[in-house]
């Protein structure tokens, strides 16, 4: 493994996830997070070389709506800018790549979009091909349920097991002031909730919610001046699978397995089980189990801590859930995780996903020390 540039997360600002912000547009929710991230680093906007955002115009209901975010990201004097119609975690990955290429030393990564303004189950039906899959009306909750069905059939996982995982995430979320669902719930209670799409109960899936996030990346030499405890990126990789659901084994995630292997190899780590915490963009307990299997982590053991933030179950703002996982890993390593801190955390894994049924997966491995010296 050749030597790469040490890059760190140096700031993360998030609007608390809410069902619907009645007083701010998406970009107006983002503005204070941009200001806060810059203030946390003690820098002016001019210190940022590159800006990149993740959002989806279809979520916004505005063709080219993403351009509106330029107004709140500090795009003047003219700056290098990029936008991805993906979770903002992938925008961070792109910024990391540009830093490795030497194009920039600092980057502002933003996620924005108000899920309440549209109807995501209708919108995300359009992510499927228009010939065979979209016309039968598949929506993301239905496809997640198909994946759950396939996984439960292969492994014998029970409804009770899903309830227990959901209860664990709810308990963690109760300690996180930035999530939407702030009350814990027992496995018994969650197992009594009605079907969302069977075999997934409403208690096992997130409510719709929105937020705005800003995260700053900085390369070695600058990161140390912007944050007292930067979270250094040790490894990262992302892989994608086939688009056709029926052509995949939905009960497994080969792309997550491969992306995790590559990220861990870059990080010089032998096993995902060696880190202190893992933040997964798992919107259902089945996704969590599939990802743990891909990572080679036993979901029943107490270490590494799984989703100490509560994970997406307690707050799932589309287009930025993955960036929040990276931000939560930063908070843990930088000692800023407050009541939901994992004591003594030194290494973390953060995950992001895109598409139906974990079609595309991105992993970060981070640590309190530099990877390359």
């Amino acid at each position: 493994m050749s030597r790469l540039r040490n890059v760190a997360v140096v700031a993360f600002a998030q609007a608390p996830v809410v069902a619907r912000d009645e007083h701010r547009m998406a970009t107006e929710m983002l503005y204070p997070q941009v200001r806060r991230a810059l203030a946390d680093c003690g820098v002016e906007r001019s210190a940022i070389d590159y800006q990149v955002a993740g959002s989806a115009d279809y979520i916004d209901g505005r063709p080219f709506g993403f351009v509106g975010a330029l107004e709140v990201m500090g795009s003047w004097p003219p700056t290098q800018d990029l936008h991805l119609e993906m979770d903002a975690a992938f925008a961070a990955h792109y910024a990391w790549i540009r830093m490795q290429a030497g194009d920039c030393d600092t980057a502002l990564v933003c996620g924005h979009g108000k899920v309440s303004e549209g109807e995501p189950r209708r919108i995300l039906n359009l992510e499927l091909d228009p010939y065979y899959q979209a016309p039968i009306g598949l929506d993301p909750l239905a496809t997640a349920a198909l994946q759950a069905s396939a996984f439960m059939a292969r492994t014998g996982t029970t409804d009770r097991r899903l309830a227990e995982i959901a209860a664990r995430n709810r308990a963690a979320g109760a300690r996180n002031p930035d999530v939407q669902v702030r009350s814990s719930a027992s496995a018994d209670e969650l197992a009594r909730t009605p079907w969302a799409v069977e075999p997934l109960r409403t208690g096992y899936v997130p409510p719709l919610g929105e937020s705005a996030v800003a995260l700053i990346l900085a390369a070695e030499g600058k990161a140390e001046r912007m944050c007292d405890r930067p979270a250094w990126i040790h490894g990262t990789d992302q892989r994608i699978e086939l688009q056709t659901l029926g052509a995949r084994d939905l009960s497994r995630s080969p792309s997550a397995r491969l992306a995790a292997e590559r990220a861990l190899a870059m990080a010089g780590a032998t096993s995902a089980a060696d880190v202190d915490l893992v933040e997964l963009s798992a919107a259902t307990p089945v996704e969590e189990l599939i990802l743990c299997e891909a990572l080679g982590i036993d979901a029943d053991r107490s270490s590494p801590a799984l989703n100490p933030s509560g994970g997406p179950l307690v707050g799932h703002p589309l287009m930025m859930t993955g960036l929040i996982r990276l931000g939560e890993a930063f908070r843990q390593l930088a000692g800023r995780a407050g009541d939901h801190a994992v004591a003594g955390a030194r290494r973390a894994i953060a995950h992001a996903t895109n598409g139906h049924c974990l079609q595309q997966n991105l992993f970060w491995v981070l640590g309190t020390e530099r990877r390359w010296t």
Partner: protein
Amino acid sequence: MSEFPPLHQEVVLEFPYKHSTGPVIGRFLAGLKEQKRIWGQRVRGQGVVVPPLGYSEVDGSAGEEWVEVQPTGTVTAVAVVHEPIEGLHPFTTSFAFVLVRLDGADTALAHVVKDDLARLRVGARVEAVWAPDDERQGTIRDIACFRVVAS
């Protein structure tokens, strides 16, 4: 700026699309409409793909010969929708999405089951129910749904 009574606007965006199909998707759909037959395509890295795209999703190579598959198959995944969404889902009362590996195919077809949901589970045997002759239009819904034949 102080909080203020919210101002709302309801808008419906509508975009009509005519998606071009191409020689493989187009002929598969013609097979449903005119022959009531289900055609797969042998594809490198995937075996017999149903429904076919004309290329391999694994390595991008062009699909090879046509292979007919049976209208019967085995369910590999079931998702039961108890509260259908109007204008999105194909039925207004409970139904299930399924993945069905048709006999002779190496991939599963995504489709729907309307009746007999209590007997529907992974491993169930199902068969295609065709839309009537004058209602088939050359879409995946020329198969109206699947029905359970053995559970």
